[in-house]
């Protein structure tokens, strides 16, 4: 079993380790170097702004977002969950045969009604 794991997840583990260690160690090294005075520390307003070389910031940190974002989020979650059901079906599509195909058709058709409902009530439009 163990070799299986390494074959399948070894790369992911190595990738994750590098992704954590590399930026982490850079931060630590930079912090350590500041003690040796190798890394200068001369803060000013421009440097301390969130986007040093980007747009000027406008407005509050916490603006009111349009609540329509929420509609999209809800629809996204629902159809994401739908994907969960389609995924195993797709994996076994050939073996499962016509019966499962019909099943999935019904499943999706029912959700199409929800989609049509959202469309009909202009939830998909940006106003």
């Amino acid at each position, binding site marked *: 079993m163990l070799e299986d794991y390494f074959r399948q997840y070894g790369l992911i583990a190595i990738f994750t380790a590098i992704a954590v260690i590399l930026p982490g160690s850079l931060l630590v090294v930079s912090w350590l170097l500041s003690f040796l005075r190798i890394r200068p520390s001369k803060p000013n307003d421009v440097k301390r702004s969130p986007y040093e070389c980007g747009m000027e910031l406008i407005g509050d940190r916490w603006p009111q977002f349009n609540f329509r974002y929420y509609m999209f989020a809800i629809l996204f979650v629902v159809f994401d969950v739908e994907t969960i059901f389609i995924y195993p079906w797709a994996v076994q599509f050939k073996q499962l045969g016509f*019966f499962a195909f019909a099943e999935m058709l019904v499943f999706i058709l*029912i959700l199409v*009604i929800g989609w*049509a*409902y959202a469309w*009909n009530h202009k939830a998909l439009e940006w106003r």
Partner: protein
Amino acid sequence: MTLHDLYLLSPELSLASLGMVVIILDMVLRRKGVLAAVSVVGLLAPLAFSISLWGDLSGEPDGQMVGIFNTLVVDKFSLFFKFLVMGIVALVVMSSVEYVSRLRQFQGEYYGLMLFSASGMMLLAATTDLISTYVALELTTLPLVALAAFLRDSRSTEAGIKFLLLSAMSSAVLLYGMTLTYGFTGTTQLVEIFERLGASLDATVPFGSHALFLGVIMIVAGFGFKIAAVPFQMWVPDVYEGAPTPITAYLSVASKAAGFAIILRVFYIGFGEISLDWAALFAVLSAVSMTVGNLVAIAQKNIKRMLAYSTIAHAGFLMVGVASIAARVPVGETTLGPSGVLFYLVAYAVTNLAAFFAIIAISNRTGSDMISSFAGMGRRAPFLAIILAFAIVSLLGIPPTAGFMGKLYMFSAAMKSDLAWLVVVGVVNSAISAYYYLKVIRVMYMVDPEGEEKIHVAYAPQAALYITALGILALGIFPGPLMTVAEKAVAVLFR
């Protein structure tokens, strides 16, 4: 899966399709008034299928037809609840017509969600598998959450949020309980759970095993939430008060009926081996629910809140029947506990619906749910007042009403199961409940009205009122036929 499987599923299937048709019609049609009619007339399809299935059952040797890979069972028990749910839906839709016309543009959603929820309840009564049970329970609850928040004022929104959070919580607890059961038995099928428990229980531990101990308690907690039993009742008053009144009516009877259907099936079939353990649990919950519900109801000024606490108390009365499992011990003895529950559920449904329908009609006009606003209704709305008074008498359990017969069956089942203490608690509680129930009648007849304007009721709600009032009277005088059917229905629980 064959065509026969689809036929077995046809009541649920046609009901869910009806919900979809209503939603689609709502998108297409301009005149929303049609939707209520479509919802009621469309119920004829599941009704026809259910009647046909009931007829087919007589040809089956063991009184049941199992389909869709053992996840669905058609027996008289599940059909009994199908008829009950359909009746409740039809009546609630009829009584909603006037109320919902205020919503103008969201009537399709209102009726559609109600039908989805009803299809979930039907499925709940007809599954023999824990996974299907869970999904059916979600199908029952989720549309009701949306409906509870449907008015979108602050009360209604609060009701929706509380309902959503607590039902999610209770679902989680329920699932954990099911997981433990599955972990212990290795199956989600109720019948197989029963068989495997028989082989693997340890008599020295309560509930036969530590895992089952925790699992069963968690399952009871999860279901207890749905039937509004203490200590899982926190959501009830706020949701009942904030939700649209027809939805409150629907919630109080249909949701409760479905909850008891699944409790009876899961515990009597799945956990039959450890019946004495959970029967004690239900007996205690029953006593606590009755007492807490009735005591807190006394202080209520809002009639919806009062009925919310009354519904908690009635959940307690119903659990008396669930706890009366020892009634099955003597051979040939009647199966009075569960069949009494079925009778009580129908009696409670007609009674509570009658009360709520009268309240809807009155508060539609007065715009208030306060008990004080019912002053002088005996003069302003003699017809509504008499039906409300009659329903309250039935809730209280005075003959000749359905409520009286229901309590009679409950208490005699408890006596047969050596639960005399529970009967005493129940009788004392009935006496306590008289205090707050009769207060409403007193306000209606003895206090002077605030205005003289008469209250008129539209045609459809009036019909619903007549049907429920007749039901209370008929069940109170001729309980026999329904009881016979209930006896037949619960036979599948005792095999």
